[in-house]
């Protein structure tokens, strides 16, 4: 079977070769060149950055398109010993929560910041699903800059989706639960009475990116899945897909699939802002962590917050409306014009497309089918623009190009279907290998999609790659969508589980003021060592602080004596380099934490317990120069009560040097 396919392929390729020298036009040359389309020559840059969620790795990965080359895995919610993330003293507070230090999470959806409905290249937001958190990554440093925990939530899945100017990033709870400000110790089967949904509207400071939970909407106890903001004409609205309108609390696989229709919840957030201004919000006692990284001190702070403002979406009229949507919708996607809202019911046979104009009219005319716990339910037909009939099995998620077409993924039938948003006709379909989840078109959730490529992120790869034991890689598949027909041009493995991803043109990120080094002059870490002359070892009881510098290719000091068994030793290493791409590493034998990876101009600290007397080598772990292997030193540990004094040096025990006058 496979051999046959290859013979056919060879025949095609050979025919291209044979006829290749004849004058040709685009239509004849398009077929055979799929591999060439994704080929980026050595030394050449890719055209797009692709930010791909790392799923259960908790991290965010960065690939190039169209090559599929992996550039970086940015540690976000999970400790990463490679980069010292969550191990260095400075980074530990980033993973603090109201539950204490949580070194792992499940990262699903990246969201690039926007200005005027277009990607602006400043920040990317990602959600932590399990211990509900929201993170902001600075795209100048590719480093996690801020993490905020979300109270009253459980499973931060409907997140992080943003408004047109990133006024808000939303975080809708996947599980409804008894709110944190009530007693959660209730029988599970009191779900209908005691369980509530909360959607956080996290405001983003336009200049600094700083996050703040502006308010939460309290909703009936249902599950929120995904969301999209309105744009252009529908700016000011937000749309959330909801499931479990049955309010089941067990065997949801069956019990939450009973109703013919669940909902898309339309939220008028401008209206919510009015209520907030009028003081209709209720301040509730909760606990959540707010963690901020500072690029000057090279340290994080974690603050436990104790209050959040809640607006009751059932009591306060005109904020929320439910639109019936067939069978457990997942995707809830708004087209670039802001007029069409596509619901993807996982178990539905049709793809409903709602019209924003019709929805507004229906609300004005009160064309409701009663209410759901106080929230009006708009009549399905009154909000519906039309249905895409028999599109495929298991629709999940839709992205858009700039030419009036939508691309919807189908998990069960493993395919992507291209359809015309205006006439709802299916125009093309391609297989994926296999079980596609989300799709990404660069800028596909904005007013101005960049088009050109579409990437499918697959849950299962089965026979596509070399086997690696019971667990196989997940994958992404890249399609050229510049023509009428979609054409697969590359298949590449990904880390974790790629849920959603976003992409932006390389120029937008490269030219955003990329940071190459941290200025040593501006380093305000309390343990910075600005020059070898300042390096020292200071004992404070059983704590010893080593103020150390690194430069190609030695540490100062690199010989340390007088450490005693049981001492807590803090190595504060300052990288004195001021050149791009010259981090130094630091590792010491027996450290039960991790290495440090210190960027040029940065100070980073690792805590090390001197467990027993002896000689403990330390060295640089990141190849830095031809003499990197020589970048090493010793720490001598003496028994408790010994009288070896603290001493330290690099090179010969130095004579003080004076400038000759």
């Amino acid at each position, binding site marked *: 079977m*496979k051999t046959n396919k*290859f013979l056919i*392929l*060879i025949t095609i*390729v*050979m025919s*291209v*070769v*044979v006829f*290749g*020298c004849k004058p*040709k036009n685009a239509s004849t040359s398009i077929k*055979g*060149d799929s*591999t*060439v*389309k*994704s*080929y*980026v*020559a050595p*030394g*050449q*840059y*890719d*055209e797009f950055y692709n930010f791909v969620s790392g799923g259960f790795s908790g991290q965010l990965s960065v690939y190039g398109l*169209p090559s599929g080359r992996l550039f970086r895995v940015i540690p976000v919610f999970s400790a990463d010993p490679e980069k010292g993330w969550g191990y260095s003293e400075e980074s530990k507070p980033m993973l603090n929560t109201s539950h204490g230090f949580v070194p792992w999470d499940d990262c699903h959806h990246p969201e690039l910041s926007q200005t005027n409905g277009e990607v602006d290249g400043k920040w990317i937001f990602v959600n932590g699903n399990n211990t509900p958190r929201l993170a902001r990554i600075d795209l100048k440093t590719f480093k996690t800059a801020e993490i905020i925990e979300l109270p009253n939530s459980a499973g931060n899945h409907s997140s992080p989706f943003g408004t047109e100017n990133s006024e808000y990033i939303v975080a809708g709870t996947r599980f409804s639960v008894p709110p944190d400000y009530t007693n959660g110790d209730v029988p599970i089967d009191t779900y209908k009475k005691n369980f509530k949904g909360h959607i956080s509207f996290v405001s983003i400071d336009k200049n600094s990116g700083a996050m703040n939970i502006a308010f939460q909407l309290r909703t009936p106890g249902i599950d929120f899945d995904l969301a999209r903001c309105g744009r252009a004409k529908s700016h000011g609205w937000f749309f959330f897909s909801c499931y479990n309108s049955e309010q089941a609390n067990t065997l949801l696989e069956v019990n939450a699939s009973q109703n013919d229709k669940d909902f898309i919840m339309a939220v008028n957030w401008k209206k919510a802002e009015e209520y907030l201004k009028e003081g209709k919000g209720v301040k509730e006692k909760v606990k959540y962590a707010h963690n901020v990284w500072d690029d000057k001190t090279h340290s994080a702070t974690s603050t436990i917050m104790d209050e959040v403002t809640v607006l009751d979406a059932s009591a306060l009229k005109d904020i929320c409306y439910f639109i019936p949507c067939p069978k457990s919708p997942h995707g809830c996607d708004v087209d670039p014009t802001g007029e069409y809202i596509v619901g993807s019911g996982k178990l539905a046979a049709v793809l409903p497309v709602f019209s924003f104009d019709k929805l507004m009219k229906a609300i004005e005319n009160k064309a409701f089918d009663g209410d759901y716990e106080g929230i009006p339910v708009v009549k399905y037909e009154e909000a519906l623009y039309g249905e895409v009939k028999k599109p495929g099995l298991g629709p999940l998620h839709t992205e858009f190009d700039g030419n009036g077409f939508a691309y919807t993924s189908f998990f069960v039938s493993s395919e992507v279907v291209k359809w015309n948003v205006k006439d709802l006709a299916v125009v093309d379909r391609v297989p994926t290998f296999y079980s596609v989840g989300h799709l990404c078109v660069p800028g596909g959730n904005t007013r101005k999609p960049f088009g050109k490529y579409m990437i499918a992120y697959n849950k299962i790869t089965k026979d596509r790659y070399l086997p690696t034991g019971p667990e196989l890689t997940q994958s992404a598949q890249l399609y050229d969508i510049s023509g009428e027909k979609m054409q697969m041009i590359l298949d590449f493995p990904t880390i974790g589980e790629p849920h959603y991803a976003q992409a932006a043109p*390389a*120029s937008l990120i*490269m030219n955003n003021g990329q940071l190459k*080094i941290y*200025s*040593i*002059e501006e380093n305000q870490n309390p343990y910075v060592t*600005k*020059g*070898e*002359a*300042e390096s020292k070892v200071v004992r404070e009881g059983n704590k010893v602080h080593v103020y150390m*510098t690194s*430069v*190609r*290719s*030695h540490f*100062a000091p690199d010989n340390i004596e007088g450490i005693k068994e049981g001492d807590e030793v803090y190595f504060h290493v300052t990288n*004195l*380099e*001021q*050149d*791009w791409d*010259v981090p130094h590493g630091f590792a010491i034998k027996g450290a039960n934490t991790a290495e440090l990876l210190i960027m040029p101009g940065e100070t980073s600290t690792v805590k090390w317990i001197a467990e027993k007397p002896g000689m403990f080598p330390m060295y640089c772990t990141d190849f830095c*120069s*031809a*003499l990197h292997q020589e970048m090493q030193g010793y720490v001598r540990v003496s028994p408790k009560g010994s009288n070896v004094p603290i001493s330290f040096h690099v*090179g010969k025990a130095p004579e003080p*040097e004076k*400038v*000759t*006058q």
Partner: protein
Amino acid sequence: MQALKLFILMTFFAGLTACGGNKDSQPKTAPGVQTEASPSTGNYDPNRGEGKFSSENLTLDAALNDSMADAGEKIANVKCTSCHKLTDEKLVGPGWKGVTSRRTPHWIMNFITNPDPMINQDPELQAQLELCLVRMPNQSLTEDDARNILEFMRKNDGIK
């Protein structure tokens, strides 16, 4: 299987390149972004080095400027003296003693603000690299920093 794929690719490229003069048939690499070109080795002047400074735009007073030299010493302690001693002894790089008589002032200023292109071209720096084996890093000095360091080097060489 991989061998087959490779064969296909090779045949394909062979087919493309076979078309010689027809530029349109060259494999199109999608990206529009060019990587940095390697520095040109044209009219390199070993007395001036390569960079912003020349004998025209850099003139020194005969006498030492003490405040500049002091500022230079502070920066040197953070960014330079990990690798350079103030004597003529080599540490990671050569000692600084006598550097202001071995090199022109603008060569020094160019080198410490623009080391990489100069290491790539300057015959004496290449010889030095064979001894030290560590390329002098770019320490992101501002023009003022560099000028102050030069003044500190002059002080170190006995200028008053």
